[in-house]
């Protein structure tokens, strides 16, 4: 059975007065109270803000005013998206007590649309991690099995959306942080083209790679949210907005003759059950009339080192500002400015963040810059070029999102290098600035969801979402199986 988008469905219910916005919102708030002990997906719940917005929406409905699609829909934001008057911590002790005085551009927009913000969701500290467990609040759990992680870094959003305690959420993806947790939690995550969504107000991890995107339960919802948040923003110099039409307009188009590229390098070292699931998906696409094109992408072997060098380098600079002087946590035990900053940062940052700051500082240092940072920049160019060439022979690239399914709790943080390696399939897209959507494509031997990603050329969100929707529409509930918890309407 085809999967129905939640947003359109709920919006319809609100308009038809099947349910009031306050009732809908209250249901979510109640379920958050019930489920969140297990999931730990929220770090800040904002019931008052949510109910206030719901009241405004109900008033509009009672007056017979037309509603926008996202109006009155309960949602969440990753805790690295700036929200005026609402704590934004990046799940780091160093931002303890910090409340932004301005809104991120995406949130400013959605707020004006009367999006109902349920709260801020958990994440790896400063978006550095693959399991959500580097969060100073502890990790968010996988709604399919709470003994497993939700993934990272946008684990809280994925956990909340997968666990049906938010209709949708916005995450951020620097090296896979939207797609990987979406894959682990059996839901949809779209990493837009670099520049498609404003980064203003997104607390930076690696500025040249970061991108905000939607995490949803269905492809249609991802398209709706993406269409809403993708606009040119004068506050972000790298912002370019949408290329042309809304993705929703072409979502359900026929994909006969669509050329789907498969690069074998994406399948090196992936787990057998993941591989089998992807192969099955390829068959689905063939049955839909898509043409499968096989090609090589040898430059992918450089993607991980390039990613970790560039991301850490930028992070080491971006995180320099947390010194305890202006906001956030400050160590009280010091005798000089130097000691204050040093102690604040030592106590305020977690292990993973410190590791990346040190790595990044190292690769930018005099004497090492050429060997690491410069080389990585030049390889970045090669990767961009290789993808460009690939899109001469295919329309979209199909690949696994992660070589495995969700880690067991505690596993990822115990072996950082092994964990870094699992980013292999997601990082190339960030390096090249491309859009990619992760969608579920079955379950592993352990019963946990498997995800696959469709990668498009720059600003080809329409194409990948169209291809994703066709797959979702064909496989339906078998693959897009919701976790047994949270709100059911």
């Amino acid at each position, binding site marked *: 059975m085809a999967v129905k988008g939640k947003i359109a469905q709920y919006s319809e219910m609100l308009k038809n007065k099947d349910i009031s916005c306050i009732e809908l919102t209250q249901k979510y708030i109640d379920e958050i109270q019930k489920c969140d002990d297990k999931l730990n997906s929220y770090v800040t719940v904002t019931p008052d803000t949510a109910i206030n917005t719901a009241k405004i929406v109900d008033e509009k409905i009672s007056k017979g005013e037309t509603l926008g699609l996202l109006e009155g829909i309960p949602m969440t934001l990753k805790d*690295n*998206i*700036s929200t005026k008057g609402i704590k*934004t911590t*990046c799940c780091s002790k160093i*931002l303890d007590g*910090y409340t*932004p*005085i*301005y809104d*991120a551009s995406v949130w400013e927009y959605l707020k004006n649309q009367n999006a109902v913000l349920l709260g801020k969701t958990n994440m790896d500290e400063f978006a550095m991690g693959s399991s959500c467990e580097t969060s100073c609040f502890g990790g968010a759990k996988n709604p399919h099995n709470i003994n497993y992680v939700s993934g990272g870094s946008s684990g809280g959003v994925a956990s909340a959306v997968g666990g049906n305690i938010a209709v949708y959420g916005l995450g951020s993806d620097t090296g896979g942080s939207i797609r990987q947790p979406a894959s682990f939690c059996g839901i949809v995550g779209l990493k837009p083209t670099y520049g498609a969504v404003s*980064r*203003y*107000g*997104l*607390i*930076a991890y*690696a*500025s*040249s790679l970061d991108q905000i995107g939607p995490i949803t339960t269905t492809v249609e919802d991802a398209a709706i949210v993406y269409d809403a948040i993708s606009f040119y923003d*004068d*506050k*972000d*110099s*790298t912002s370019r907005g949408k290329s042309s039409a809304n993705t929703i307009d072409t979502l359900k188009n026929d994909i006969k003759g669509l050329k789907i590229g498969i690069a074998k390098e994406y399948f090196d070292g992936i787990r057998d059950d993941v591989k089998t699931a992807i192969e099955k998906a390829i068959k689905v696409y063939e049955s839909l009339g898509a043409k499968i094109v096989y090609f090589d992408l040898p430059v992918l072997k450089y993607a991980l080192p390039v990613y970790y060098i560039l991301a850490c*380098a*930028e992070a*080491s*600079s971006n995180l*320099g*500002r947390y*010194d305890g*002087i*202006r*906001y956030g946590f400050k160590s009280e035990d010091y005798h000089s*400015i130097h000691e204050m*900053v040093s102690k604040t940062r030592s106590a305020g940052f977690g292990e993973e963040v410190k590791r990346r700051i040190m790595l990044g*500082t190292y690769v*930018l*240092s*005099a004497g090492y*810059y050429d060997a690491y*940072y410069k080389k990585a920049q030049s390889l970045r160019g090669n990767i961009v070029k290789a993808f460009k060439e690939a899109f001469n022979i295919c329309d979209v690239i199909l690949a696994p999102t992660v070589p495995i399914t969700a880690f067991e709790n505690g596993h990822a943080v115990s072996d950082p290098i092994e964990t870094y390696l699992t980013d292999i399939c997601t990082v190339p897209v960030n390096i090249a600035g491309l859009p990619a959507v992760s969608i579920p494509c079955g379950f592993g031997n352990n019963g946990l969801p498997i995800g696959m990603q469709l990668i498009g050329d720059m600003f080809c969100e329409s194409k990948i979402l169209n291809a994703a929707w066709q797959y979702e529409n064909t496989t339906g509930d078998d693959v897009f199986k919701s976790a047994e918890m949270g709100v059911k309407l």
Partner: protein
Amino acid sequence: MKYELVAGFETHIELATNTKIFCSCTTEFGGEPNTHCCPVCIGLPGTLPKLNKKVVEYAIKAGLATNCEIAEISKMDRKNYCYPDLPKAYQISQYDMPLCQNGYVELSSGKKIRLNRIHIEEDAGKLIHRKGDTLVDYNRGGVPLIEIVSEPDIRSVDEAKEYVEKLQLIMRYIGISDCKMQEGSMRCDVNISVRPVGSEVYGTRTEIKNMNSITFIAKAMEYEFERQVDLIESGGKVIQETLRYDDVTNTTSSMRGKEDAHDYRYFREPDLVTINVPKEQVEKIKKSLPEFPTQKLKRYVEEYDIPNTDAQLLTKYRKIAEYFEEAIDGIKTPKTASNFIIGQIFRKLENEAEKEEFNIKVSAKSLNELIKLLDSGKIKMNLAKSTLDKMLETGKNVYELISESDMGGIDDNTLLELCNQAIQQNPNAVNDFKNGKVKAVKAMVGFVMKNSRGKADAVLAEQKLIELMQ
């Protein structure tokens, strides 16, 4: 042994744009601490910079005014260092692709001090130390700066002084900065070394940081030159280090050595896009620039026949040059104007700052009127001079201060009488005039002039005659 001084300058100049380099906060000097700030310029998490186009334009102006090449493509970089006045822990600056390169500033001797580069960057905030506490004021954070880096072409303290003054003059002329050293809108770092006269090799240099007055620069350089020479003479070695100058003791002392030099870990600022400056834009900016002092000077000497030394005084400050040019409009003797300005007018101005302000009571138009009277012979030099003094005192114009009689002419009644006489005694001319022969009035003007022995104002006489005949 005789030693020669070798110096190069790094000069920071605050640009006089209305808003900061990456946000729309005001650049106004002063203000209550932390009131000229916003989330962007205090570097709140998640904020992004947005490059102020005016800053690029101003920097290009500075580049063009100092004979630089303007890069068609440049970019911003991050200079990473940790200090409480730097809220992002990096300064957005330009590293390997500056906006302007390879320029020079010409000294009066004709010697060219080469400029390596001019780049744009943001200023930092300010620390205020008070009763054992240190407070930070971020008002200045994000104010746009250009950094002008010279080659080590300076060989004496006098050259150094002239170089700094020249830069100041040029930047003020093109209106991109007030270059007030005492307010910190112009600050200099001096790299200084010594070597035996005749040597081709540079000695080890020290850098004296952050000097904010030309007098101190000169003193510090003199001190540092002596220190280095003494050190070498006594068998020691100059070590590469960063120094601060203490204007009370007139000495330099070490801030940090070479081994403590910062590793700034420069890398491209990912939050900003490439800066493209099309050739057409540079041309457009070039056209908008005022005539430079050196060009003006040449023109004054050649076209107006003004002595070089006077022309230098007139062109030193833009306001004076503009005043002079307005005052000589339609005047045959620009030299007279020059003499008035350099003589009587300058005497009213106490110092260089006042000259630069050039706030005087006599408008250029008034001076122009005065010179015109002098040129036409209606008044003599003595009267012109005393009248100018009165004008400078009172702000009144020449016609308010001197009557017709003062002009060595005749008063209104006498003029009227003479005109009536002319009409009575020249009936033919009157007839001719009334029959439409307008020129006939000229003969009668001649009569009036003759009978007033040249004292009457011909123009006034003509007016009066026509009035009487009509």
